[in-house]
């Protein structure tokens, strides 16, 4: 079975995000005065091939996030796994 995976990494809530602050001030300059808490993260998509169970895919993605895709020192990650059709 093949699986489509979407991964999101964000700076941890406790860590100031310079990019988010800059985007927020840009939005403010455009007149959007009611915007706050802007954070910028990364979105990744990938396909995992030939794995039978969703749990197995999830544990592989977890490991990949811890080792490479996120930096656990400063980033949190979340992901979604969906079975691909056909």
């Amino acid at each position: 079975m093949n699986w489509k995976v979407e991964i999101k990494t964000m700076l941890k809530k406790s860590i100031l995000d310079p990019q988010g602050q800059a985007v927020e001030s840009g939005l403010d300059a455009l007149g959007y005065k009611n915007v706050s808490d802007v954070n910028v993260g990364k979105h990744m998509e990938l396909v995992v091939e030939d794995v039978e169970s969703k749990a197995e895919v999830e544990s592989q993605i977890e490991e990949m996030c811890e080792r490479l895709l996120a930096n656990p020192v400063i980033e949190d990650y979340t992901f979604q796994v969906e079975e691909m059709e056909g």
Partner: protein
Amino acid sequence: MKFAVITFPGSNCDQDCYHVAQEVLGQPTDMLWHKDAQDLSEYDCVILPGGFSYGDYLRTGAIARFSPIMNSVIDFAKNGGLVIGICNGFQILLEAGLLPGAMKINDNLKFVCKYVNLEVVNAETPFTNQCNKGEILQVPVAHGEGNYHIDEDGLEDLIANDQIVVRYEDEAENPNGSVMNIAGICNKEKNVFGLMPHPERCSESILGNGTEDGYKIFASILEYVTKGSEQCG
């Protein structure tokens, strides 16, 4: 003594480091390609140079950290070998877990390229024994991600173990927003050192930039290796 300089795809300070170690310091130096995992025990010091390894994709240093030679560097460091990571090299050491903490994008979102005043906080390391505690070194920085971050417990550990080696002289000199103006740290054992400024860019007077302060870092390494750890750091 013998140096090794490691070249990753995207390194661009490797030749400068080689030049300073081989020609200015006058010590035999090998250039090693990142794909060549090998025993490094014939070397006294391994230099991870600055640059943009793997185009800084994903995070700075994140992919270089898995280059085949990095396992050799980790073994070398665990056996007490001297490792210095400059700029991108520092970022790689953080990603490899050889030094604690992580890098964020500069707080002003700019790539900053200029001379800064660096205060030597710990002059008793293999990398700073030719400096005095509190001495100010003029060394250039050139980076977009040097905003050093570590959590509070980690910061307390750094302070308690004298691991903060150099810091920007004050808030005004801090080019990136790093916590406590940190510019360079070492591990607990003091044999792995990472710093954002580029000592290899200011190690000889012929460059005409008015400072040779970077030479003191390389001279410290030579002193430590040739005179032994008891005399210096």
